[in-house]
């Protein structure tokens, strides 16, 4: 069993991991940048180690510093959270070389899935459908690929995830400018500027499947629909995927499990699919080899603590859950409350939080690291917290979401709470099953 767990992350997910680890009797050690030294996760962790200054490249992304910190703190395992180094194979290797367990999949899985192109190839091997597109290593190759696929298209970071480095290109004359931006963003987020090209599907839904595996067995914990996105950042996530025939949902879940078994997946992971909103045909996009931001909606409907499962599997225990034991109940919706300015095209807005009144009550869960007096540094992403509601039916969950959003009061920085209230009030959202173009049609 894990005795001392290092947490190589920050924000709400660091706090989330600390809570479950402490409940399991594990001592938690949090690596912090100087900008986060007085954060709530730092206060809650049993111990903290200073990694370096605020910018991620000198702290949370600095593999040598993070590994040195966990070695000096005598940790026997590390939870990487999401983002940062969570899917970095070089990091996982450095951790393994230091004799420390990595709470995540095998290094070869990270290599296969971290490289989104290799992931496409593995999915094809497992018999999953993928979108037209592929590798484009040079500027000339990007142009050639674009000419072959046609516009609009998507540029995606090969090392990507979380929408960073992902940009839509509508016209050939924009390709060079957008390519520069995508590469710079990919470099900043992942330390790797390589991008690839994929066809853009206009009427698509983003549906994903939560997976758990122990290297031998793999099961799914149902679907999540994350179609409501802006700048390829998910804003609203729900479980299960609504307004979808049971057979279509089962087909996607089976495909995800097939991929997990094909690669001998170990730990928690998520297979992402693009689903045609009209006929429910689906294409494999990527497999995220980590805990996802939106994991709480799956926890809400299944009652499974996914972080606990991750820690158990990382300890070397076989999966105790079987597919038959997973019995989803009701409907859950998560909205991301971000520090962003709705009056300036939702530009990230760092600053000082003067008041944070989060919703509370039956069927309401809030995962946040933000309380009054907290600082939102400009170095990291804009997520302030996640509001998760759960109810027996989707209709009741939407009603609960509306009530919760009406009470939320965050002061000091502008937030996306108002945007979510508009989304919750939209009749298309009430029906369910919207596509990724939803936000463009949203009433002011």
């Amino acid at each position, binding site marked *: 069993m894990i005795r001392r767990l290092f947490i190589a992350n920050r924000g709400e997910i660091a706090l989330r991991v600390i809570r479950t680890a402490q409940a399991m009797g594990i001592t938690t050690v949090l690596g912090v940048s100087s900008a986060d*030294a007085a954060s709530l996760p730092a206060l809650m962790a*049993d111990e903290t180690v200073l990694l370096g200054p605020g910018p991620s490249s000198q702290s949370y992304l600095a593999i040598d510093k993070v590994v040195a910190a966990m070695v000096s703190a005598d940790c026997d395992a590390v939870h990487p959270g999401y983002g940062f180094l969570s899917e970095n194979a070089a990091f996982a290797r450095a951790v393994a070389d230091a004799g420390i367990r990595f709470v995540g999949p095998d290094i070869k899985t990270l290599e296969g899935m971290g490289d989104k192109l290799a992931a496409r190839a593995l999915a094809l091997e497992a018999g999953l459908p993928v979108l037209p597109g592929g590798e484009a290593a040079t500027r000339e190759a990007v142009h050639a690929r674009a000419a072959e696929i046609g516009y609009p298209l998507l540029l995606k970071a090969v090392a990507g995830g979380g929408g960073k480095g992902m940009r839509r290109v509508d016209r050939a004359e924009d390709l060079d400018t957008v390519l520069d*931006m995508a590469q710079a963003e990919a470099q900043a987020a992942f330390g790797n500027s390589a991008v690839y090209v994929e066809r853009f599907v206009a009427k698509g839904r983003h549906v994903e499947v939560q997976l758990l595996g122990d290297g031998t067995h793999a099961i799914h914990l149902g679907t999540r629909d994350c179609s409501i996105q802006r700048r390829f950042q998910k804003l609203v996530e729900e479980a299960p995927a609504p307004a979808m025939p049971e057979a279509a949902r089962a087909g996607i879940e089976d495909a995800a499990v097939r991929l997990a078994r094909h690669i001998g997946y170990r730990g928690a992971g998520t297979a992402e699919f693009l689903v045609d909103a009209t006929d429910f045909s689906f294409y494999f996009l990527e497999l995220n080899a980590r805990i996802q931001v939106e994991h709480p909606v799956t926890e809400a409907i299944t009652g499974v603590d996914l972080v606990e499962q991750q820690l158990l599997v990382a300890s070397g225990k076989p999966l105790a859950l079987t597919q038959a034991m997973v019995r989803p109940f009701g409907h859950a919706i998560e909205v991301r409350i971000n520090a962003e300015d709705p009056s300036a095209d939702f530009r990230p807005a760092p600053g000082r939080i003067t008041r944070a009144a989060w919703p509370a009550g039956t069927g309401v869960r809030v995962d946040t690291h933000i*309380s009054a007096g907290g600082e939102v540094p400009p170095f990291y992403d804009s997520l302030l917290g996640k509001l998760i509601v759960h109810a027996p039916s989707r209709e009741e969950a939407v009603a609960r979401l509306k009530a919760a959003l009406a*009470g939320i009061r965050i002061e000091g920085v502008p937030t996306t709470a108002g945007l979510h209230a508009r989304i919750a009030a939209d009749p298309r959202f009430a029906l369910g099953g919207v596509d990724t173009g939803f936000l463009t049609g949203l009433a002011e």
Partner: protein
Amino acid sequence: MSDDLPLNAEDIAEIAAIIEASPYRELDLSTRRFRLRLARADGAETGLTQEWQWAGSGPEAVVTAEAEHAADPDAVAAPLPGTFYHAPQPGAPPFVTVGDEVGPETVVGIVETMKLMNPVHAGLAGTVAEVLAPNATMVAKGQPLFRLA
């Protein structure tokens, strides 16, 4: 320090249910470590809110302190705080150099804030006379980046 994590999400939901079923408007609990206020939400017909304050949790002076910058009509200012870059990527030539003609829509730099690359547009027409902020440095919102002539 925290094998006694004060209250988990289930505890909060239970306390909220107790308040909702009671004639009370709020619960305000202060300890040495934290203060929790659970109250009926302002302006909302139903529901409660939770407000936490933690002893010892507070900001270190970071970089967001918004300096008052003299409004220089010839300056291109940072639209938001973050790391200012002269070039689209390391090693690439800068977007603009002294002597370049720019128009309002010309991209003159990038400010990286919260992992997002935000293009900086000149906002006005002119000739770049001086580069005021060095490459790859933290800038505050409104800080002058270039002076135009």
